[in-house]
Structure formats: structure tokens, C-alpha cells
């Protein structure tokens, strides 16, 4: 009877397409919004992923990566002295204003890296050589800085600009993940960074570290915290800490959550109701099958097959459309869009759940159906 069930489903093309559209729309909306939401969360911790080191050490009260709480310069040596630490280097991170030769001002995030090792440098360059950062007044921009500060015609390799009245010269353009705030990132050495910024009692933003081979990151971070009193986090934990901070302290979580929930409820309600109506409209046909000897179990199997067939088809098409949207709109990292397998599994489970629910409602109606309906 599976064959009959599928022919009944596909036979009424208009109803089938309406069902499919409802489910596709619901899936697409949830996946698209969910992926944009997750993309934004990834952007919120882009400083962590761009610098890409295993351990971050800073003030224990820090909320998120961009909320810098300077610590004493001696922290680097204290961290280095903790057993299990292979290396530890300083990192400066602060906000400054850049003045271009055309008179424009732009707020930038200044990132100062340890000069001897350049640990924390971006993995990929679009132009120039990162090692040139060691030259006098040299800085490296990320690609978003070029975009935000006027484009390649205004700023590029060799361009001079001012940071706090001091000269900076662009020697390379790095490819990085866009940040949540989209503030241009300017890389330089740690020593030069603290010369650019106004004098402060404490200038060290973070100590970046790595555990020795054989020591787990969790053990080493716990040891650093225990022995130095500083906050030490694995990159993953620091990323989650940042995401949690954003969710708690901005409206993004509630806004996106509401949109996703509404999309889910509306989409699924449409899909569930359409499928239920599809069954109700076919009630006489099901009644005829029941009269001819089809058991309620057989009919239930037919309805579940129809529900899962249209559900899985809608899921596939919806995912395809959402992915195409992501590919077209977010290619090159211009828009936040991160489609995770966890989201896809979650949507699949939810979709099959709503299909099952609407099928069960339809089945309960069928179970109560007197086949004598066919004689009326």
C-alpha cells in the first residue's frame, strides 16, 4: 500500500506543491535565520579565531574578548613560569582612531603582537609579507579595514596614515574573519602598539600561551589561574564565554530567537495544518480503503509515509535554498552565515516531529472514521 500512499500524495499536484511549499518555507526560514544567528556569534569571537592560539590569559573578571581589562606586564613572565606552559607571549588589543591623509577619521582596533615570534598573526595574507611588520612604522591591515576606510583607492600597501599623531605605514593586507562590530583591525608589534596608544599604567591586554605536549589545555589553564590569580581560558571556552556575553548583554539572542521561533511556529503550523487538511480531504478515499479491508494500521502507515515523504522532500529543498542563499550572500565573508550540522539535525528532528504530530492527528481521525462514510 506504500505505492498507493505515494500515488495519492503525488497525484494531487496542487495540494502536494502547497504542502511542499509550506514545509520548504519553514525549513528555509529556520535554517537561514539560524545560520545568520550562528554566523553573528562566530563574528563575535572572531578576535579569538583570527589570533588562533590555544590559551588566553587575562583579568579573571573579563566578560568577552573585545572587553579588554589590562593586566600588569609582569603577567607574561608569571605565566611562563607555570609548569606545563610551553610558551607565553604578550598581546595588546585596544581601540584607537586612525587619521587618513584625506582627513578622514576611522575607529580601529589596534592589535600588538609579540615581535620575535609574531604569534597571533593572521593565517592568510591577501597582499604583502607579514614579516615586513618588523620594519619601522609598519602595520598590517585586515581586508575589512581596507573596505571600511575607503577601499583600495584610498588605502593599500604603502599608504601612510596617523595613529594618535604617530605615523603608520601599511605593508600587508591580511585575510581574516569579519568581526561583530566590523571595526577595522590594524596589526603591529606589541612594543610599537604601546607607543601608539596614550600612556596607561597597565598596557598588557592578554597573555597568549600554549600547553606543552602531553599537558592538557584544561589542566594548564587551571594551573595558570591557581598560580597567577589571572583568568586563563582555552580558546574554545573563551569563545563560548564571548557568545554567552553577547547573548546576555545584547538583544541579538531575543531578537533572533523570536524570529526563529516565529518562523518555526508559523512554518510548522502551516505545514501541519496543510497536511491535516490533505488527509481530511481524502477522508472518503481512506474510508473506501477501510471498507475494502485496509486496517487502521495500514492507513496509519500510509499517512506516516506521506507525511515523512513530503517532510523530507521539503527539508531537502529548504536546506538547498537556504544554503544557496548563504553561498550567494555570504560568500567572501561579507555576511554572517554559518550553517552547522547541529542546526540541520535540529531542524530535521523538529520537522519530523511536526510531520509525526500532524500525521498522528490525522490518524486518530481516521481511526474513529466509520467506513460507512463511503455509503453517504
Amino acid at each position, binding site marked *: 500500500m506504500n505505492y498507493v500512499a505515494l500515488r*495519492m500524495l503525488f*497525484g494531487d499536484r496542487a495540494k502536494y506543491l502547497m504542502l511542499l511549499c509550506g514545509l520548504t518555507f519553514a525549513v528555509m526560514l529556520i535554517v537561514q535565520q539560524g545560520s545568520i544567528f550562528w554566523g553573528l556569534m562566530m563574528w563575535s569571537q572572531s578576535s579569538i579565531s583570527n589570533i588562533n592560539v590555544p590559551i588566553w590569559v587575562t583579568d579573571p573578571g573579563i566578560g568577552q574578548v573585545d572587553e579588554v581589562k589590562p593586566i600588569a606586564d609582569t603577567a607574561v613572565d608569571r605565566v611562563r613560569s607555570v609548569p606545563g606552559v610551553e610558551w607565553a607571549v604578550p598581546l595588546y588589543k585596544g581601540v584607537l582612531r586612525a587619521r587618513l591623509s584625506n582627513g578622514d577619521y576611522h575607529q580601529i582596533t589596534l592589535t600588538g603582537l609579540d615581535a620575535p615570534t609574531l604569534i597571533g598573526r593572521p593565517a592568510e595574507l591577501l597582499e604583502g609579507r607579514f614579516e615586513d611588520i618588523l620594519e619601522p612604522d609598519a602595520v598590517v591591515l585586515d581586508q575589512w579595514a581596507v573596505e571600511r576606510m575607503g577601499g583600495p583607492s584610498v588605502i593599500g600597501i604603502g599608504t601612510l596614515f596617523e595613529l594618535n599623531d604617530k605615523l603608520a605605514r601599511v605593508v600587508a593586507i591580511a585575510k581574516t574573519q569579519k568581526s561583530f562590530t566590523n571595526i577595522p583591525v590594524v596589526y603591529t608589534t606589541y612594543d610599537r602598539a604601546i607607543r601608539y596608544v596614550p600612556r596607561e599604567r597597565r598596557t598588557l591586554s592578554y597573555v597568549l600561551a600554549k600547553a606543552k605536549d602531553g599537558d592538557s589545555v584544561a589542566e594548564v589553564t587551571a594551573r595558570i589561574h591557581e598560580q597567577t590569580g589571572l583568568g586563563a581560558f582555552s580558546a574554545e571556552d573563551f569563545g563560548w564565554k564571548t557568545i554567552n556575553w553577547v547573548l546576555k548583554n545584547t538583544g541579538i539572542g531575543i531578537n533572533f530567537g523570536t524570529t526563529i521561533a516565529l518562523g518555526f511556529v508559523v512554518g510548522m503550523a502551516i505545514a501541519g495544518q496543510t497536511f491535516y487538511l490533505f488527509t481530511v480531504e481524502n477522508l472518503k478515499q481512506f474510508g473506501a480503503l477501510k471498507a475494502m*479491508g485496509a486496517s487502521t494500521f495500514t492507513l496509519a502507515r500510509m499517512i506516516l509515509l506521506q507525511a515523512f515523504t513530503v517532510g523530507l522532500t521539503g527539508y531537502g529543498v529548504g536546506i538547498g535554498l537556504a544554503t544557496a542563499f548563504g553561498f550567494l550572500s555570504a560568500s567572501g565573508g561579507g555576511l554572517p552565515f554559518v550553517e552547522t550540522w547541529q542546526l540541520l539535525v535540529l531542524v530535521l528532528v523538529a520537522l519530523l516531529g511536526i510531520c509525526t504530530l500532524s500525521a498522528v492527528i490525522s490518524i486518530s481521525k481516521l481511526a474513529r472514521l466509520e467506513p*460507512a462514510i*463511503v*455509503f453517504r
Partner: protein
Amino acid sequence: MSMDGSLENSADAPDTVHPSVAVQVRGLVKSFGTGETSVTVLKGIDLDVYFGELLLLVGESGGGKTTLLSAIAGILDVDSGELDVLGASLTKMAPGTRTSFRGRRMGFVFQQFNLLPALTAAENVAIPLLIQGTRRQEAIARGRVMLERVGLGDRTEFLPRNLSGGQQQRVAVARALVNDPQLLVCDEPTAALDGPNGQKIMELIRDVGRVPGRCVIVVTHDSRVFHFGDRMAELTDGRIVGVHPIHAEATA
């Protein structure tokens, strides 16, 4: 119990059903609704239907014809009374067993055909076999053979919407007979058809349905097809007011 089907009192009913009796109904009562809105549609029906005969159930609208047919077909629960069909007591049968029993032993022809619009004629005919678990190819092949028997051998792959009303009812008759049922129940099979097509359908039902070992019950109010029956049971206000042999009337 007489072969002319004269009214019988349930108190006189034998304990065992005579082998020639396909359907034995005793004291059947069926009401719809509850309380003040309750309507008793069948008020103690007694009736015998024999193998090899075509019985017509006739009477005024609302008299209980279709309700009685539904009860005999096992698709409607009754309030009280005995219902022995093809040697089994439908009133004592569990619903699941009754469904399976219907599928194996009965065939149905409905007033509105009830063909599945998405399936071809051959596939529609194959449905009772598919329900019984016959493999699809075999079931459809047997459906095609059955369609040839009802004169639609050249329409096996047509969808119902591409068939005339008469042709659709022929498909429905083929579907009702494909699993070789012992009881064929037909509800107003000519109601949706014009005169000539109605005659042809009744001819078909009589020719392919009324064979030894099978009986046919037809609900109809179409007097033009009365002569196809062997006997006629007349229902009025939920009671059988008479059961008559037809040939004498038809030839009169």
C-alpha cells in the same frame, strides 16, 4: 425459513445458519444520535439472503436501506440483533478481524465510485489485492485481466478523470470482484449514471456477480433496474415490509 424470503420472526430463527444462506439478519436495531435527538433507523430487521441470488433492497429515502447494507457489510456497528454473514457472526467479531474479513470475503460498489483519482484504472482495480498483501505487479496484472472482463481492456492505463461515469462504475465493479468475493454489496450503483449506462452496469453486476457461491445485495431506488434482481426486499421506516421474488413481477 422460506426461499421466497417471507418475513421471519427472530424468535423462530434456527440456531445454525442453513448452508444456502449467505446472510442471515435477525432482530437488527440501529439508532443514530442520543437522547431526544436519537433516531432509530433499523427497527428489528429480519432477512435472509441466499448464495447465487441478487437481492435488491428498495424503499423510500430514509427508510434504512443504506444503513442495513452498511451493517451487512460490516462497516457499521449495530445496537442489537444478530448478523451472520458468510458463516461468521459479524456482531461478535472484533473490529480488526471484521476489517480483514471484509477485505477477503466482500466486494463493494459505491454510488460515487470512490476510485482513487491518482491511480490508473488497473491500479484502482488492484487495490483490494494490494490491501491483502499481493505484490504490486501481480495485483495490477490481475486488475488488467478483471478490466478486460468488464469490457475495459483498452482503458487499463486511463486515470478515472479520463473515463466516463459508466466506465468509472465498470472499474468499480471490476475492483469489487478482483479478489473473488462471496458477497458483493452495491449501494445505488446506477444513481450517478444515465439510463442506458445504468442498465449496462446492472447487466454487468448480474452477469459477473451472480454466480454460484456468491450473492449480491444491491440498494437501489431505480425502478428501471428492478428486473435484474431475483428478489426484492422493501424497507419502510426501518422495517422490512415485504420480500418478493421479482421474475413474476418483471414478466407481468
